[in-house]
């Protein structure tokens, strides 16, 4: 039976809180303090990945399978999408491809950096 008290997420949260509340204020050296904040940020990514529980990968796999019209392992499907991109005419103008990639990207970003604001569409446009 899995150990549940505290579970992995709760344990991670405790470590992260300790670093943030007890260690960070005690670190004077700017370079070290910067590295520590990067490390705490890294723990945040791990926490969000744990909470997602593989949903991101399963979602990506399903989207790729639907777009390519075939089943397979995630790594294989990614390779197949690469071949599709290599083999099609102006794939960067395919709205269905871009929509699918954006859905996958949004789910990854929600884990890696949910606060990140991607560039917004402007009126200028790319030719």
């Amino acid at each position: 039976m899995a150990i549940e008290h505290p579970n992995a997420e709760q344990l991670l949260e405790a470590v992260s809180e300790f670093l943030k509340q007890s260690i960070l204020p005690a670190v004077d050296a700017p370079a070290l303090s910067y590295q520590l904040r990067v490390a705490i940020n890294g723990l945040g990514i791990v926490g969000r990945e744990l909470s997602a529980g593989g949903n991101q990968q399963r979602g990506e796999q399903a989207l790729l399978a639907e777009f390519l019209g075939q089943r397979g392992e995630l790594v294989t499907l990614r390779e197949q999408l690469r071949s599709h991109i290599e083999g099609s005419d102006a794939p960067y103008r395919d709205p269905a491809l871009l929509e699918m990639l954006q859905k996958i990207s949004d789910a990854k970003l929600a884990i890696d950096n949910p606060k990140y604001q991607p560039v917004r569409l402007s009126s200028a446009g790319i030719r």
Partner: protein
Amino acid sequence: MTDMALVRLLEECLSGHWQSSVTIDNVKQLTGGAASQTTAFDAWAEGKLQPLILRCGDDEHQFENALTKPTEASLLELVYQQGLPVPEVIAHIPASDVSGAGFVMRRLAGEALPKRILTDARFATARELLAGQCGAVLASLHNIDPRRAAMLESVSVEDDVLRYRERYREFGQCLPVFDLAFRYLLDTPPTPRQAAIVHGDFRNGNILVDEQGLSGVLDWELAHIGNPIEDLGWLCVNSWRFGRVDKAVGGFGDKRALLETYNRGRDTDVSEQELAYWEVFGVLKWGVICLYQSAIHLQGKQRSVERAVIGRRLSECEADLIRLLKEH
């Protein structure tokens, strides 16, 4: 390197420059690992305190094609002579037991930390002026006859894109968004421009700013000869907006202001559309640098939590690339 040995080396080299005895004080290492250092220090010479910077050694884990320190010094001397706001090189430091080859330059006043540049009240006026000033300085740089910069490598756009794609593929990570963006760059070549000196890393973080705006341009290691609009696109990459996504130029200004002074300074007609190609190029370049940084860690060449975490910034690059590609 020991502080004492370094101090003696600097005193010896700088005494030659000022033709009098020099005393070194306040040595403070700013960045650097075993192989490469940037060190701030003060020298007492000619009866006053001279704020200086030593850059020496070459980082074996520096991103590819980075200039060696002696090459960087000769480029700095060239652009300084042309009146660009860069530090004056004071002395060349030969390689020795104490340090790798390097150079000493004047330490310019100004703020380099992007967060402070973007938020400090004292830079409010500077922020209004910066985008236009960046355009003007880049125009001056790109107006220099590139034949004078024989120390730099010349690269065509296509070769550069292919080289970055090769680097990306070497890491063995399959990122379809990257494949798509590389395909776009190769299929739709940009407006050809006469080759010029490209800074290669002109962005918020590598500029010095004071209350009047741009006061210095730093970090010339990625300089090369190529299509100059690369510098303008790189300056607009979202990562260098530090969260101020609506201020496309470094988080402080807009593209119109940048292009206005740039085009005026060069009598040219770069449009936002042309810039868009180079923004895609810039995001991909940043993505390949992220891959490279995390690989240095993962392959055990230099273990570092910072390099590890930077690998997860690829998601940011992907998010920006998709949106940029959707704009056509």
